[in-house]
């Protein structure tokens, strides 16, 4: 009987023992974790070394996106709602004669203790000189000079507010990390070599392979070396110059794109994420009581046309397409409340159009509201007929049909493409959507290997209209813009006759918007370009994307400002409002349960290997269970 019993339940006992061991190991592992409070948990995708690296100037670096600026700070922060720079590493700046002069903050140190000086700012911009940053390639500046330890100046060649933004918003890297390249770059600059000269290009090629061993900045959070596929940790820099304003002592970033980050948000393990979540996921967040913040992203998807193909080259045809698509439906299907239709198709995002366009200009703009009858009329007026099968035909009788390519991996753009294709097919223009991997998609557009394509409009996190018009007229139109060689892009002619503004050279108009500090002049140029865009419609804007960023309130973090707060005019990426809050202490703060015990300062060292009391107890318990089980089985066998 005992033997049978023992045999019968031997496996049950072993399985139970394994379960017990497992359940004991779990709290053990928890016990190994030190208390790290107050903690802020964000999310950003990154690649682990050897794929990811610390050369934060080049691609593949571990910059951690928006959180880069809490490690390596810029000279100033920027507030979109009042067009103001907030001093950070710079204390003041001014334009004096041909120079943009920046005075730097004293008493700031890098994470390794070295003082922050003008050499670091100049070094950062000397590296950008060899990399031919737009500050140089667009001709805004040709020299950077150290005036004294805490003053640096830039020689202006082409006055523009854009150069101020470039300089003030760039994260400052330590000279000590890059000195070998900075010194060589300084020599080349002193010799008057251009960034496109062969020696500088060779230095840039070498620089792209440079892999620094350390990652330091002046920001409140410093690299700990604690990085895995799952997460990376940063701890507070105790000598941070603005330490009283920073309310968190630890920063954890969860690694991954939307699918990997979603369960962390659902588990309330992430305080804030900037990923683009599908509407269904967003709904789940809401049901869990997670707040959704919708800041403007200042861009979105548009239908781009290959204007080498007739009738896509015709303004009336593009306008017919604009009238045939219900963009409200398209935006809602793609991104629910975060995909909002744009009333004035001008190339400017909604918020910037409100700031820059005069009421007179707005009155002149054609509004492309959903109107299939008007679209039909436009096609009929140009000799198109609708067949009995419901499809439009060219004047020669062939059916009008196109292929619409879209980036496969972008869920919201994929939905926009599928919906636009369905709407146009329903209208009578047969459109077949085709997914292309996101890395290949822009190449197809630039190479002109498409008919219709979903691609971006709007310049994103750049407040100056120049970037938005560049994106609208030039970016996908390389040949005309003179950027690419022989690549046709959308082939939109940049010299055109318009009803609104006569014959216009769009390239010159766009460049002109970036010129000078006379804001009235910039405004006039902006209004002209808005009218030109509206009349010529180089692309059909589907909607403007707003963030649908989950912000968890009450677990670790509280104090997220209300929706109408002006800070939310800042986009979630470029001039990220969350980074502004982390750096300045505005809004968010730790919850009481996210504060360390009063007498116990937060531990700073990672868990060290070794046996502790818990481990010994667990080991004893486990061994006892196994011995008991074996004795039980053995006794069963004997009896």
């Amino acid at each position: 009987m005992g033997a049978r019993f023992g045999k019968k339940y031997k496996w049950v006992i072993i399985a139970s023992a394994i379960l017990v061991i497992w359940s004991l190991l779990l709290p053990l592992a928890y016990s190994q974790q030190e208390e790290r409070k107050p903690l802020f948990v964000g999310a950003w995708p990154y690649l682990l070394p050897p794929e990811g690296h610390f050369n934060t100037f080049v691609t593949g670096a571990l910059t951690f996106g928006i959180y880069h600026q809490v490690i390596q700070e810029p000279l100033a922060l920027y507030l979109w709602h009042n067009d103001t720079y907030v001093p950070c590493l710079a204390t003041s700046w001014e334009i004096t004669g041909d120079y943009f002069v920046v005075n730097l903050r004293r008493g700031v140190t890098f994470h390794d203790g070295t003082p922050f000086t003008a050499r670091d700012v100049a070094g950062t911009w000397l590296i950008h000189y060899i990399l031919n940053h737009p500050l140089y390639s667009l001709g805004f500046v040709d020299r950077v000079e150290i005036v004294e330890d805490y003053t640096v100046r830039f020689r202006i060649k082409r006055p523009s507010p854009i150069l101020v933004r470039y300089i003030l918003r760039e994260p400052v890297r330590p000279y000590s990390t890059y000195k070998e390249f900075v010194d060589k770059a300084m020599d080349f600059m002193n010799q008057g070599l251009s960034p496109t000269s062969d020696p500088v290009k060779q230095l840039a090629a070498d620089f792209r392979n440079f892999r620094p061993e350390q990652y330091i900045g002046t920001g409140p959070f410093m690299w700990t070396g604690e990085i895995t596929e799952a997460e990376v940790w940063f701890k507070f820099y105790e000598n941070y110059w603005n330490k009283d304003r920073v309310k968190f002592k630890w920063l954890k970033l969860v690694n991954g794109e939307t699918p990997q980050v979603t369960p962390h948000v659902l588990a309330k393990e992430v305080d804030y994420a900037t990923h683009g979540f599908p509407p269904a996921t967003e709904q789940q967040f809401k049901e869990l009581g997670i707040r959704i913040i919708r800041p403007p992203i200042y861009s979105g998807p548009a239908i781009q046309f290959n204007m080498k193909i007739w009738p896509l080259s015709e303004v009336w045809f593009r306008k017919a397409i604009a009238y045939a698509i219900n963009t409200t439906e398209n935006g809602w299907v793609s991104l629910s409340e975060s995909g909002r239709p744009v009333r004035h198709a001008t190339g400017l995002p909604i918020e910037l159009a409100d700031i820059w366009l005069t009421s007179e200009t707005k009155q002149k703009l054609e509004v492309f509201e959903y109107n299939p009858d008007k679209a039909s009329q436009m096609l009929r007026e140009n000799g198109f007929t609708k067949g009995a099968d419901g499809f439009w035909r060219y004047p020669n009788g062939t059916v009008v049909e196109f292929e619409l390519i879209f980036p496969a991996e972008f869920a919201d753009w994929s939905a926009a493409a599928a919906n636009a294709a369905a709407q146009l097919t329903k209208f009578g223009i047969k459109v077949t959507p085709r997914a292309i991997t996101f890395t290949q998609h822009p190449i197809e557009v630039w190479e002109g290997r498409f008919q219709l394509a979903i691609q971006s409009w709007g310049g994103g996190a750049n407040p100056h209209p120049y970037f938005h018009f560049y994106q609208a007229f030039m970016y996908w139109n390389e040949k005309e813009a003179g950027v690419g060689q022989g690549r046709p892009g959308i082939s939109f002619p940049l010299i055109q006759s318009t009803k609104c503004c006569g014959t216009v050279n769009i390239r010159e108009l766009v460049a002109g918007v970036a010129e000078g500090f006379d804001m009235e002049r910039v405004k006039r140029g902006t209004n002209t370009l808005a009218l030109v865009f509206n009349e010529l419609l180089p692309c059909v804007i589907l909607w403007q994307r707003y963030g649908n960023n989950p912000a968890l309130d009450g677990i670790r973090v509280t104090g997220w400002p209300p929706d109408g707060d002006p800070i939310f005019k800042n986009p979630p990426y470029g001039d990220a409002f969350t980074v502004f809050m982390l750096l300045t202490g505005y809004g968010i703060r730790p919850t009481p349960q996210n504060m360390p015990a009063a007498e116990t300062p937060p531990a700073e060292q990672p868990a060290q290997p070794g046996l502790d009391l818990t481990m010994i107890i667990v080991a004893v318990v486990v061994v006892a269970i196994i011995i008991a089980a074996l004795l039980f089985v053995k006794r069963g066998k004997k009896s």
Partner: protein
Amino acid sequence: MSLKNLLRAVLGNYLFKRALRAFGIIVAASTITFFIIRLMPSNPIEIFINQMMSAYGMSYEDAKAMALALFTIDLDKPLHEQYFEYVTNIIRGNLGTSISISPGTPVMNVVTAFLPWTLFSVSISLFSSFLLGITLGMIAAYRRGGIFDRVVSTVAAVTSAIPGYLLGILIVVFIGVRFGLINYMRGAYSAGLTPGFNLPFIVDVFLHLAAPFTTYVLSTWGGWMLSMKANTVAVLGEDYVTVARAKGLPEGRIRTQYVGRNAMLPLFTSLAISLGFIFGGSTLIENVFVYRGVGRLLWSSINARDYTVMQAVFLIITISVVVSNFLADLIYSLIDPRVRVGG
């Protein structure tokens, strides 16, 4: 023995023939892989050029010149020249440098950073799944028609029909999210621990392995179990089992020596192939759990069109599958001498 006879003996040798065939398969598979990779739309140089143009405002020519200077691969060369270069480099033991996911890093360094984790996780999971499957399969066969058989067979059929990545997502959502264990379902170990042979690290590694292990075992044990059950049922009807019973041999010996061993033979080849695939990792499961492994590396290299890394991973998979098959053939021929006859 004359040279002719010696040659005949060597060429007719079972081992030699198998080794030759294995080598031929490796050459053929790596050649096909090489060309298929290049048939994919887009290439890493094009992607790099576009990155340089968008990020640094470079001209097309400058970006292209930089790409050619940076990478040891020239995709403008005729395919046969590229192939010849590839083969020559492999013979020299040079797999090249990563093109896009970690530009300039030797591919061997990239692969060896991921391979140990894959070998660890997939091998443990595979052996556990195999052991679980054959044990339960055999029990089910002995109790065929009973409740145990019906329950286990149904569960096996259901779990093996669900794709591993889907099971993984379900585990993440229903266990990780619900029970607050999500942090143990991401990555291979916790940040802050010092990798090495120390107890906290080892415990942590096993805890992080739990979810991918469970997913892998759940999605694969059913196949082993159902095959083992079918084989056991067939063997139980064999005359030699009846004879063994008639001779009065102990049931335990019949179960292990007569039934189990013979029923397991056909599964041996499948196990050998699976062992080979250990080196390729489990792409989808590794992605769901953000687990450090070759599968994830392969995924990112395909997305980035990193030809050299893709080639290296496929080559490793090919070699490991072929070698494990070759070894299986050898062991099989020892277990069952019939396969050598006319083999």
